[in-house]
């Protein structure tokens, strides 16, 4: 049986990749994808601990988060399309209207 720590390391790796993606990338679609990565890292974490404890609650949460991620992706892509129509760009650095 694969020890729980492996799952956690995988989860940590995925989350770190996601965070680095969010922080470093400029394209908002990539940022959105990175956020998906981070969500799935959390899912792996939840399922891993659920198996360790022997409870189904973690699975239930994971399913909630998958649903949530789908909704979030839909919303995020919608905002991105609206933004692109206005500014004709996908660069997050350009999104500075709230600065002042």
């Amino acid at each position, binding site marked *: 049986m694969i020890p729980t720590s492996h799952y*956690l390391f995988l989860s940590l790796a995925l989350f770190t990749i996601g*965070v680095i993606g969010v*922080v*470093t990338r400029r394209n908002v679609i990539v940022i959105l994808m990175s956020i998906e990565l981070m969500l799935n890292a959390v899912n792996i974490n939840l399922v891993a601990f659920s198996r360790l404890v022997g409870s189904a609650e973690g699975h239930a949460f994971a399913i909630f988060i998958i649903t949530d991620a789908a909704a979030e992706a839909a919303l995020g892509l919608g905002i991105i399309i609206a933004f692109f129509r206005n500014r004709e760009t996908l660069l*997050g650095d350009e*999104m*500075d*209207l709230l*600065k*002042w």
Partner: protein
Amino acid sequence: MMPAEYFLAHIWMIPLFPLAGAALMLFIGRRLPNAGVNAICVGSVFLSMCFAFGAIWQLVSRPVAERVVSYSLFDWVPAGAMHTNAGHFMNFNVPWGVLMDPLTAVMLLVVTGVGFLIHVYSTGYMAHEGGYYRFFGYLNLFMFSMLTLILANNLLLLFVGWEGVGLCSYLLIGFYFLRKSASDAGKKAFIVNRIGDAGFLLGLFLMLGTLGTIQFTELGPAIAAGHFEYGNATLTAIALLLFVGATGKSAQLPLYVWLPDAMEGPTPVSALIHAATMVTAGVYMIARTNAVFSMAPKALAVVAVVGCLTSIFAASMGLVQNDIKRVLAYSTVSQLGYMFLACGVGAFTAGVFHLMTHAFFKALLFLGSGSVIHAMSGEQDMRKMGGLWGKIPTTARTFVVASIAISGIPPLAGFFSKDAILGHAFEYSPILWVLGVVTAGMTAFYMFRLVNMTFFGKSRVDHEVAHHIHESPSAMTVPLMILAALSVVGGWVGWPESLGGSDRFAQFLAPVMAHHEEAAEAARTSSGSSTEYLLMLLSVAIAAGGIWLAYRWYIQRPEVPGKIAAANPFLYRLLYNKYYVDQIYDAMFVNRTKDLALTLGAFDRGVINGLGVDGAGWLTRITSRISMVWDSWIVDGLVNLAARVVWVLSYPVRMLQTGRVSRYALFMLLGVLIFLGYYFRSTGLTLTNLLH
């Protein structure tokens, strides 16, 4: 079927016809042809005359004791409670009311009758003048004012008419307003009358304060109720103040100076306003308030002396004038002096009698002179006339009739009225009688000097004028003939008792003058009828002497007047220049007033404008400049300083707000890491022992 006494019940309508005529002229006169103006303006005066004659007829039909009609149309000045000088409370209310009694009747007869004739005459005289509708509009407005004046039942309403006729006098004297002398003469008349009006108003106020009423019919009862003694000082003051007003309006010393200049107006105006009606308003007013005057013997003495001096003073100036209208102007002043002399000696009826006869013959003289001027293409200088008798026969004959009437030759109108005045003056003081008779002689002389220079002797007419000499149209000559008839018979109503008459004129007016007649009854008995005959004979003889002298000097030996003038150069120049009164007034009052005005103007410009207004502006500008500096430097500076401090302090925080989402995410990550690191350190956990 007319109700009984229809006209007496509607006397208030008499002034309204000319008022309507004047209003129509104001609004549509410009668009009317001359015939339309004639129909409206002459027609309105004709209606007034019909109403007036009807009212007079109905008044005369009444018994003597009931010949007073006085009623109010509406409350005009409801001023409310006041208290008199005697301390009584009263409710002061001036009504717009009319009064009709024998005195009003005489005035109505003169004003509407002579006024109508002069309106008819004007249609001929003014036919070729510009401003035809304007002239008739003013004439109608004058008729309205004059009728208001004589129909008023109180002194304040009389004052309204008084001012109205003054206004119309101003407008009509300055009718040819493009000529500077005419507009100056209008202003002079108006301003000189203001001086008199000030006295009138003060007299009115004093009368109201003392007697508590200004209604004519209540004056006698109020004096009786107040128990004023004969010669009371307050009543004397009232009488004198009212007389000041009368000297202005009726051109007496010292305010007569405007009347000769008023001849700048068209001749019908001189006839209507400055001979027959308006200038007699002062005499009418004194006769109206005779209840007050007859209680003030000192005021009456002043009236008599001023009237007598004016008459001889003006007559002496008339002796040497060469302008045909100016001779008549001085004659008017002189005859008005007679009327005041009559009032002053207590013979109000004689004054009013002379007012009436004078209106007839003086209107005729003026209209006749207008006809002469019309024939002479505008020439007014008698030195350029002469020999006109055959060329303008109607004018000449009527003019001579009027001249005989004014000279006091029986049985024409002037004789009776002048004789009545001189008779009463003799009873009062023989000195006044002597002055009056001398004036009568001078009157006869200058009138026949005028007649001889104009109508007889050799023609001195300019050659080109001589071709155009023509008799005036019938619109002008018919009024002359009617007035000539009145100048002959007008005096017969006052045929004195001593000549077998009954002096019905005096009896007619007696109820109005009740106060005086009682007081004068005692004095009357002193002179017998033989004295009266002698006085009459003397005055007629002197008048005839004046006529004879004029004939001798201006027909038989025309070189004599020049010699006399050359022998007495000082006297001639004094008379010819009217005693230099205008120059003296200019030096004493007019120029001093102008100096005062210039000084005040300089004060206004320098001190009020310069120091006051401009100074205040300068001060405001300086203070606002200081205020602006304070505002922009100190107040704004503090506000900006606060903002700048916040700006500087906020610099580090501001730098964090880049607006880049990824940067914010990095900060978030850093925050989480710091938090985690702090958490792990404080709990002693490490990543490895966390996993195992």
